[in-house]
């Protein structure tokens, strides 16, 4: 069946037809893109009502998979001064948006009042909650948790020192004292089961869809020990529950941790076992240096506030060269973290030398550049410059660490674009973090070009880029970086129908309002995977 979406402002990210009014979707694929009259003959039509549509977003560097483990154990820590009547509301503010299932928290002091399930039930009527005391020797359950555990009038106390507190009516109040009785509630948490991880992944996918992402590069999926998420991803994929494409990576830390040949074997195994239309595991990730904040980014000149320090190498240049050569010869993409200018120089040596034949080559983060390296990356022509535009927000600590001169020429994505280098944007985070709001990212990239001082960005203005270029960095350029440009990244006939319907036009709205752009609907392969509920004001969604 064909469905035409018409009467919209469609930014396609396709240079051949940058703006359209309408498009047609058949069997999960765009089959036509054009004007309203082009689609008039289509039997099924959806009136976009003048809304703006963009391609499904591509997060070119994120950590979605680490979120599975973290969400599965996401203990909320509370202040032990908290009173019973404050508990429900405080906890509801702390719970991660998009999450569901058990809420686990810790930190109450049960001597601060008479805690009971009632303190939680108002805010959590149908979701189990367990709140441990700060010393780990008492536990508060809500009614939903008690029902799930079968804690009722009949429940037996392990002994006189460990028991379920009861009211005058003999019913448990929700408070559990001491470890033997608490251990009987442990089953609510489960072990580290696939169920927990499955729920976490479902929540994460829904949260990503609510931000408009339909494709992501996970920048640290496995490093030889932590590949247990793949069976789960495959299961989701096979059962049609995967609402985005995920390209994963193997992170190589150096010979000290794994012999290069052993790493290559492992990467091949992962690549062969994780391969479908929506999943790939075909990228080698390496980490050349650390971060400026920790004084571990490799700099050619010392840190301004620590004249003895020039940062530290995380993976040695020789190790990177050896691994890059093996990976490139075997057809793996290469993606290397480099923040400081000395790391960038090293990584350009690796990517321009032994890694040259990799299908795609990417430098991630790119904070500080020497002029000659800008020339070099431009000369190479097809190395991707990946970064997180939110990081151009001005902060004084960075100026203190780098000195004014270097702080004033960070993240040179304007110069890169002028020199024809492909710039891609990503969150470097798991959803929920402010950097996952791509519209805030577009804002920082464009506001920097408009007036860095007024919008709280690092200068200079010429390192900012236009909104159109920022949209490309979040769509088609990211798809090219991942080798998925034939499938996604633009609204083009023949590509997967991945698109996002927005509440405003991010290309023309007042720039200060750009970060508040709200995703109304996200479509992946022609299926709606997210729709903002009517009446939902977008609270809890990712904001800058």
């Amino acid at each position, binding site marked *: 069946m064909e469905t035409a979406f018409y009467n919209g402002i469609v930014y396609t990210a396709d240079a051949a037809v940058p703006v359209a009014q309408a498009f047609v979707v058949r069997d999960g694929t765009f089959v036509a893109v054009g004007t309203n009259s082009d689609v008039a003959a289509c039997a099924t039509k959806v009136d976009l009502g003048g809304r703006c549509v963009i391609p499904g977003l591509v997060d070119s560097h994120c950590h979605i998979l*680490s979120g599975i*483990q*973290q969400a599965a*154990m996401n*203990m909320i*820590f*509370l202040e*032990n001064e908290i009173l019973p009547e404050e508990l429900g509301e405080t906890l509801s503010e702390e719970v991660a948006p998009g999450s569901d299932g058990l809420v*686990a928290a*810790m*930190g109450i002091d049960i001597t601060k009042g008479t805690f009971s399930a009632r303190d939680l039930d108002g805010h959590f009527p149908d979701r189990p909650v367990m709140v*441990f*005391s*700060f*010393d*780990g*020797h008492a*536990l508060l359950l809500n009614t939903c948790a008690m029902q799930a555990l079968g804690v009722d009038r009949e429940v037996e106390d392990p002994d006189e020192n460990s028991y379920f507190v009861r009211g005058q009516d003999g019913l448990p109040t929700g408070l559990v004292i001491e*470890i033997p009785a*608490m*251990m009987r509630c*442990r089953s609510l*948490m489960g*072990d*580290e089961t696939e169920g927990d991880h499955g729920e976490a992944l479902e929540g994460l996918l829904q949260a990503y869809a609510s931000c408009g992402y339909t494709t992501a590069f996970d920048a*640290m999926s496995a490093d030889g*020990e*932590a590949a247990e998420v793949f069976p789960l991803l495959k299961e989701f994929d096979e059962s049609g529950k995967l609402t985005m494409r995920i390209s994963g990576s193997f992170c190589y*830390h150096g010979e000290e*941790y794994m012999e290069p040949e052993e790493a290559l074997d492992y990467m091949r195994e992962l690549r062969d076992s994780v391969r479908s239309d929506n999943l790939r595991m075909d990228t080698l990730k390496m980490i050349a240096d*650390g971060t400026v904040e*920790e*004084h*571990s980014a490799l700099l050619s000149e010392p840190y301004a506030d620590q004249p003895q320090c020039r940062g*530290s190498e*995380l993976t040695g240049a020789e190790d990177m060269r050896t691994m890059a050569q093996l990976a490139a010869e075997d057809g793996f993409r290469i993606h290397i973290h480099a923040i400081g200018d000395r790391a960038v120089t090293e990584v350009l040596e690796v990517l321009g030398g032994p890694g040259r034949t990799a299908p795609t080559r990417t430098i991630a983060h790119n904070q500080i550049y020497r002029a000659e390296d800008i020339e070099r990356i431009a000369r190479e022509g097809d190395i991707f410059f990946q970064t997180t535009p939110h990081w151009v927000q001005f902060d004084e600590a960075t100026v203190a660490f780098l000195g004014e001169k270097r702080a004033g020429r960070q993240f040179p994505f304007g110069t890169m674009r002028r020199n024809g280098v492909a710039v891609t944007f990503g969150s470097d985070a798991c959803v929920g973090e402010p950097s996952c709001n791509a519209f805030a990212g577009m804002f920082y990239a464009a506001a920097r070009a408009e007036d860095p001082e007024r919008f709280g960005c690092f200068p200079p203005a010429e390192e900012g880029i236009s909104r159109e270029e920022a949209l490309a960095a979040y769509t088609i350029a990211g798809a090219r970086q991942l080798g998925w440009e034939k499938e996604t990244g633009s609204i083009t006939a023949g590509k997967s129908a991945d698109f996002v319907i927005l509440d405003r036009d991010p290309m023309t709205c007042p720039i200060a309002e750009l970060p508040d752009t709200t995703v109304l609907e996200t479509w992946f392969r022609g299926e709606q995977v997210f729709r903002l509920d009517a009446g939902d004001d977008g609270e809890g969604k990712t904001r800058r």
Partner: protein
Amino acid sequence: MTITRKMEGDKLELALEGRLDTTTAPELEKEIADSIADVKDLTLDLEKLVYISSAGLRVLLSAQKRMNQQGSMVICNVSEEIMEIFEVTGFSDILTIR
């Protein structure tokens, strides 16, 4: 609480003695934040730790999440009392305890 620090290359071992609670947890947090940048193996020796509160568990969880990104973390010599707290709170599932 006393923290004894032993650094060898990119391996850091911190031996904790006393009580890890609201008062002392910031000290451990600072110690970890200050020295963890280049660390790939972090070991926390809890042999002489007599008490741990939620504030201490919070520091362990954040250290574990951080080390998941850059290497590994191991907790060793855990007393029976503290192991009970790890087990009942589910921390035994996410920490590597030897």
